[in-house]
């Protein structure tokens, strides 16, 4: 029997109706599920905690919703271990069926779970990492970084030192990939003499020997990358040796909201390169910092700021692409990058899904009894990273 045009029309109409009805149902039941993965235990727990708190602050401001849909937030601790990170990502994608993964931990953990995320198509927004492979040939359409390309802040300090007309700079970092990347970033913009380049053991507690070396080299300035407790140790010891007055200290990811409580006055006078600081004077940032301090009783760090931004990006994106359609969501996230108001000033996703943003120089100063950052320069404006041309995405 052949189908008459009428029945065929009926069928199509029925199917369309059913489709509309189903879509309606799914829209009614729509709820966004977001998985946050960050280090929540161990010495780097503060970096993860700030990301969770920053994200939750934004979700709270939005009334527990993202894109108008009730949001369920799942939190997992990757313990800064790549193998555990991969397991969590597997669980987020396979079992929890999350709409987006946020956080993604440090570069090494992110890189370990990257294949699984890319294959699944699930949208992921890193709030603490932007490794060069992800920025270059290894870029993925569904993986974003709302943080930075890892070299960015160091490039800004290199430019800052160059603009200041410094002749001789001494470089110091822990002996691992990120340490070397930061020094490469600095050298990309600083054209003067590198007096010496010293790599220390990772998690080395005492820098007395290296500080004696630094003192005898008599450079115009020292540029360091010592994240977390290493930075607290280094700066305290440099300050106690009376070197802060003799050798200007430039740093990245060393003096921030996570380390200032342990540093206090010791960091006063140092200059940090970053894409954000609590001192940035924009209406969005003032509100973010005030709300964060009220809710969590501490000053937010750049890690809280990136996660706060990521939540606001997702809010816009989920308002346009309904939960469940990963491909549409990835497109919406990319567009949302230039639509939302970032706490850091100008922001957009580049072709490689990494940020186009300003990098600032903040001097640490005493303000009354507390120690805060003060904007002294904007060495790089709307900076695109050095790797984006190698990315095949358009």
């Amino acid at each position, binding site marked *: 029997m052949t189908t008459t045009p009428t029945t065929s029309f009926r069928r199509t109409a029925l199917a369309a109706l059913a489709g509309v009805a189903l879509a309606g149902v799914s829209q009614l039941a729509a709820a966004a599920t977001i998985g946050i993965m960050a280090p929540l235990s161990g010495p780097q727990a*503060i970096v993860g905690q700030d990301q969770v708190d920053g994200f939750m602050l934004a979700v709270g401001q939005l009334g527990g919703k993202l894109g108008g849909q009730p949001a369920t937030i799942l939190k997992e601790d990757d313990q800064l271990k790549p193998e555990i990170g991969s397991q969590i990502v597997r669980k987020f994608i396979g079992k929890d069926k999350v709409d987006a993964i946020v956080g993604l931990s440090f570069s090494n953990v992110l890189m370990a779970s990257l294949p699984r995320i890319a294959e699944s198509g699930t949208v992921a927004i890193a709030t603490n990492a932007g490794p060069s492979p992800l920025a270059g040939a290894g870029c993925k359409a569904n993986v974003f970084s709302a943080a930075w390309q890892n070299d960015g802040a160091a490039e800004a300090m290199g430019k800052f030192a160059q603009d200041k007309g410094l002749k001789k700079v001494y470089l110091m970092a822990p002996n691992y990939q990120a340490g070397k990347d930061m020094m490469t970033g600095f050298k990309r913009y600083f054209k003067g003499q590198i007096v010496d380049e010293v790599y220390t053991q990772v998690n080395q507690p005492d820098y007395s020997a290296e500080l004696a070396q630094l003192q005898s080299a008599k450079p115009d300035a020292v540029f360091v990358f010592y994240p977390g407790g290493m930075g607290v140790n280094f700066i305290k010891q440099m300050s106690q040796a*009376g070197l802060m007055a003799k050798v200007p200290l430039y740093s990245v990811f060393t003096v921030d909201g996570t380390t200032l409580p342990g540093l206090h006055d010791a960091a006063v006078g140092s200059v940090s390169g970053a894409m954000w600081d609590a001192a940035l004077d924009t209406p969005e940032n003032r509100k973010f910092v005030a709300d964060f301090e009220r809710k969590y009783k501490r000053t937010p760090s750049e890690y809280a700021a990136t996660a706060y931004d990521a939540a606001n990006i997702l809010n816009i994106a989920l308002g346009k692409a309904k939960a469940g359609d990963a491909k549409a969501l990835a497109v919406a996230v990319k567009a949302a990058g230039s639509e939302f108001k970032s706490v850091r000033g100008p922001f957009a996703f580049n072709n490689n899904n990494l940020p186009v943003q300003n990098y600032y120089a903040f001097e640490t100063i005493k303000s009354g009894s507390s120690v805060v950052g003060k904007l002294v320069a904007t060495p790089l404006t709307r900076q695109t990273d050095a790797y984006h041309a190698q990315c095949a995405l358009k």
Partner: protein
Amino acid sequence: MNSTLVFAQLLNGLQYGVLLFLLAAGLTLVFGIMSFVNLAHGSLYMMGAYFAATAFQYTGSFGLAVLAAMLGSLLLGLALEFVAVARLYRRDHLDHVLATFGLVLFFNELVRIIWGAQPVFLQVPEFLGGAIDIGGFSYPAYRFAIIVVGLVVAIGSWLLINKTRVGMLIRAGAVNPAMVAALGVNIRLLNAMLFAVGAMLAGLAGAMAGPILSVQSGMGESVLITTLVVIVIGGIGSVTGAFYAALIVGIVDTMGRVFLPFLLRQVTERSFADAAGPALASMLVYLLMAVVLAWRPQGLFPANR
């Protein structure tokens, strides 16, 4: 490389060594004499630093901070001994390791719950805040204070062990605990006291290190490993050995960090030397330990038995 720089580095090595000794002295007593492997010794050091930072925050006095750290870790040591450690003496070393490793995790989380994940602040006392000029080098005055405290503890523990009745019992208990107990000495109490004194020294080390290091969760782990190296090199159970070994390890580590990359640069390419230098330097104390173990398995200065 001039002579003042070498001298400054020797001083740095000495200061690091003395700090290691504060930790090693307590640990070797417990390890050598009670044959108890205490991985949580680093946690006691961390707790000492936190006690000091908290006391400093409330009183503003560094002296009181050190006192609080010593008293706090002494009490904590007693409590630990009573609650957990005393039940483990008769078990084998693997049980000690497992139980005390659990304690390490427990204490790391505990400080995170109480003090938060951010490092806490502990200041150098005002009168030691400056730096002393040694031939063009400014050396922090506070580090001299650490050296002095370490030497005082070294002399004090030598006197305690070699010149007092308690010291005699400690030495005897190390050789034959059953015989000492049979002579009517309360070996149980002696052990508890020894453990608490070891804890107090770790707390003192934590308080002294607090102003120069980041006081944060997990700060005890890296230093514990070096402390174990010190004990193995010095000879288990020997406080004198721990003292010499701590100085050797402190100086070898410091000198290695400075001069290995420098020496490598003379013979290899710069970029290779920059990467391999720190890696080799971090192995140096373990290499030293391996050599000592091969040559004298009982350590350089074993306790007299």
